[in-house]
């Protein structure tokens, strides 16, 4: 019920728009084309899954959206702002204010506790959730003062999720968030992402190799050879808990 209402009410304002996005890596003599002219618009509040084989360009695409990388040519707009026109400092601000990242390998700072890893982000955010609340959101209220090495893989990834959402980002960019996790733990992480999307209205972009995960998306975009191969719209989104692999 709730799902249906939300999808129906989803506003159709693009949060991201890319125009003929191209990325070339110049190697020793042979250039590698990671992106070959991608045109795409992502809507506010939608959940998008990017599928595709290794080297298809989806990670590069995600990195460019997140302001981690610059395209070789083409344009990227975040709402009204052209990202490709920003300098390094402005991109830093952009990431700080709008973007949350979740990575396959959690990338927690080993020398900081769960709470401190989250605080790392909330301290520089404009309108954050308290680290404790963010950890509670992912069910880790009892493990807040543990160091990453004292947490299981799933717990570490949930800290990473808490860390990403704690600043109330406009967009959550997830690169293989379940790649290193077993099915049950992975689903827990997906539930956390889903919850954030639902409760905070955060746009979520998830890269995965796992086609099963596509079922929880509003749209599924398949990449191949640096281009968009197909876009499909899920009429019915499955809740993360209903997914299995």
């Amino acid at each position, binding site marked *: 019920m709730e799902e249906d209402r939300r999808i129906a009410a989803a506003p159709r304002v693009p949060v991201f728009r890319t125009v003929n996005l191209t990325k070339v890596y110049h190697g020793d003599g042979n250039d590698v084309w990671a992106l070959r002219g991608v045109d795409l618009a992502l809507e506010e509040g939608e959940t998008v899954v990017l599928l595709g084989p290794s080297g298809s360009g989806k990670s590069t695409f995600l990195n460019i959206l*997140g302001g*981690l*990388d610059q395209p070789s040519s083409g344009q990227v707009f975040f709402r009204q702002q052209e990202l490709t026109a920003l300098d390094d400092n402005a991109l*830093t601000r952009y*990431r700080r204010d709008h973007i949350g990242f979740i990575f396959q390998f959690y990338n927690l700072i080993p020398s*900081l506790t769960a709470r*401190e890893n989250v*605080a*790392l982000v909330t*301290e520089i955010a404009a309108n954050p959730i308290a680290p404790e609340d963010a950890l509670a959101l992912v069910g880790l209220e009892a493990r807040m003062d543990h160091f990453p090495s004292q947490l299981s893989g799933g717990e570490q990834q949930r800290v990473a999720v808490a860390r990403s959402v704690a600043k109330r980002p406009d967009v959550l960019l997830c690169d293989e968030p379940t790649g290193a996790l077993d099915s049950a733990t992975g689903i827990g992480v997906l539930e956390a992402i889903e919850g954030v999307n639902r409760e905070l209205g955060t746009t979520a972009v998830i890269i995965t190799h796992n086609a099963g995960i596509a079922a929880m998306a509003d749209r599924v975009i398949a990449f191949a050879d640096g281009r968009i191969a197909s876009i499909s719209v899920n009429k019915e989104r499955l809740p993360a808990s209903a997914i299995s692999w």
Partner: protein
Amino acid sequence: MTALNKKLFRDLWHIRGQALAIAVVIAGGIATLVMALSAVESLQETRRAFNEQYRFADIFAHAKRAPEWAAREIGAIPGVLRVESRIVQDIIIDVAEMGEPARGRVVSREAGGQSRLNDIVIRRGRDLRRAHPDEVLVNEAFAEAHGLQLGDVIHGNFNQRRRALKVVGVVLSPEYVYAIGPGDVVPDSRHFGVLWMGREALEAAYDLKGAFNDLTLTLAHSVAPAQVIDQVDRLLAPYGGIGAYGRADQLSDAFVTSEMEQLEHIAVVIPPVFLVIAAFLFNVVIARIIQADREQIGLLKAFGYSNMAVGGLYLKQVLLITALGILIGWLLGAWMGHAVTGIYRDFFRFPFLHFQVNPGALAISACVGIFSAVTGTLSAVRRAVAIAPAVAMTPPAPSAYRASIMEYLGLARFLSQTARMILRYIFRWPLRAILTVTGIAFSVAILVMSLFFFDAANRMMEVHFFETERQDMSLTFVDIRTNAARSNVGALPGVLMVETYRTVPAKMRLGHREERVAISGLDGHMQLSRLVDVNGRVVKPPPEGIILSDKLAQLLAARVGDLVTVSALEGRRLVRQVPVVRIIRQYIGLAAYMDRRALNRLMGEGDIISGAHVLSDSRAEPALYAALKDTPALLGLAVRSAALETFSEMIRQHLHTMIFFYLAFASLIAVGVIYNSARISLSERARELASLRVLGFTRREVGTILAGELAILTLVALPLGCMAGYGLASLMVNLFDTKLYRLPLYVADSTYGYAVLMVITATIGSAWLVLRRVASLDLIAVMKTRE
């Protein structure tokens, strides 16, 4: 505290061993700088206060017998502030508890009154009283050396008459801070004392009523001493003036100056070595940390931390380590300064000598420390800043090992698998290998340089006491004796051999350069006192011409064949041109040598001697000493065994403390460099080494790979370090080159041996510390986590 700062401190704690090693190297440089600059400042300040308060003179002049009005004329020279005439006389002193006679210098003092110049500080007892002509004040060092108490009586030979002298006071004087006897190499307070006596008593003893034989004066500021010295010389020439000189040539003051210059040289040479090494360690260690932190750096940037915040994170680590180093350095420097000042308190007799840490030195050292640390780290930090956030998110490509020179030469097939891994790793990071080798080589070099000071001092001692001055004692006569006195000396008990000599004070000029020097006229046989060239060959002065010591030749810019103008400062004061026939190397003082008969001809005099070198039978020593104490014509006596003992004692006391510091620091450098190098190599290869362990290599075999690398780097560094050490030694020789002494550039084989041995020990110790970690490599964790 922010999460970022927490990370900072935890990361720092994680590398505490390496951080401490670097901090200690920094501390070495800072400590040396603080010690040297503060000690110079303390010495300078103490000397300034002492000289000012007790009116140390600017110019000193000696004559034979000048009328009092000559002093008044000198006082009228423009620029002269105050003049004081006095009587200064060298005598033989007999201290009851000592078998051999001692030499003394008696200085006149207005009884009960304050001297106008070169006043004394009475440490014990009281000043002289009028109408007590036999009262004396003695310098503190001499009093201490003999345990003299107030009221004790010593004897002196005054103008061929023995007199009992009652010690009424123990004093210090700015003129005898470093009380070195005439012709001595180091101060020997047992055999040389300074006495102050009532002026009238000395006038009577030396028939100098209304006259003087010594004069000192002070100058107004901004008056150049050279002009006044010329005028004083002109005025005193008719009265047997032997040439006035300024503070720069006043022995005691010149030695204090020379010591301060040494400290300044140390401050210039040593700290940079430490700080360069610290900069290099920072560069290597921080570069490695940044390499390992790539993902975290990318993450922070992805979160929106600015370049400044990320770069600052590493810069702050460096600054914290540096701050620790500076703090340790300050404390260590203050402690070393106290120790060094303690030595100076024995050498230099100041009424007070407080070591004070100079705030300027603290500030300078901190700036220099921070500068070197930041310089060392900047490139690594810049690399961290330059890491693009996306690049940081991907794992680094596996280290690109390439075929190296080893493969090209086809050596690989002769090497074991382990040896190949070691060598490939070294060639993979050639710059780091070079830096490590340089660091280790520097520690060898500092060790060699430190120990070189012993070698140089010992060599100096060997040359002086065993190759050139081989007589048991040298006698100086009150007046110039005809050679007939030779037989009188020969007749003294226990005398086996006599060699006479003549000394003439002279000014030597070549072009516009001029030096005061004593010309020694030597007898031909030279069995006892000899001239020896660099190659150890005995050199005999030719019948004509003059031999100059190298330093004198350098000061005069004289070469063999040049004609120098010699102005004798005694007798008929003839001025002659003499050809330089040879230049020989000498380490102590300035010297010129001629054949004694040639010198006598130059003086326009007959067969004259001023003293004799003596070889004596040690069994007859007591009788000889007794006879000498009763020889009224004796003006001075230098006993070789005593001088030798004093010299060794000085080396022991003075050098030991300083060298202990350097040895400690050099070892710390070695440990700092080697330990850091090993830790980095372990952290970089933890995966590789763990893989080997998983594949079935034993701990020992894996350890060999790490240890082998260290061993190779150390072995390459050792010979380079020995060469660099020789280079540093020769730099020291150039820096420690004064009129007073030079260091022989002589590094003993054993010095290289010790240096090499100490660095090998440091390598083994560091390797052991790191190899213990091989045992605790977490095989599973290392295999699981992404590189």
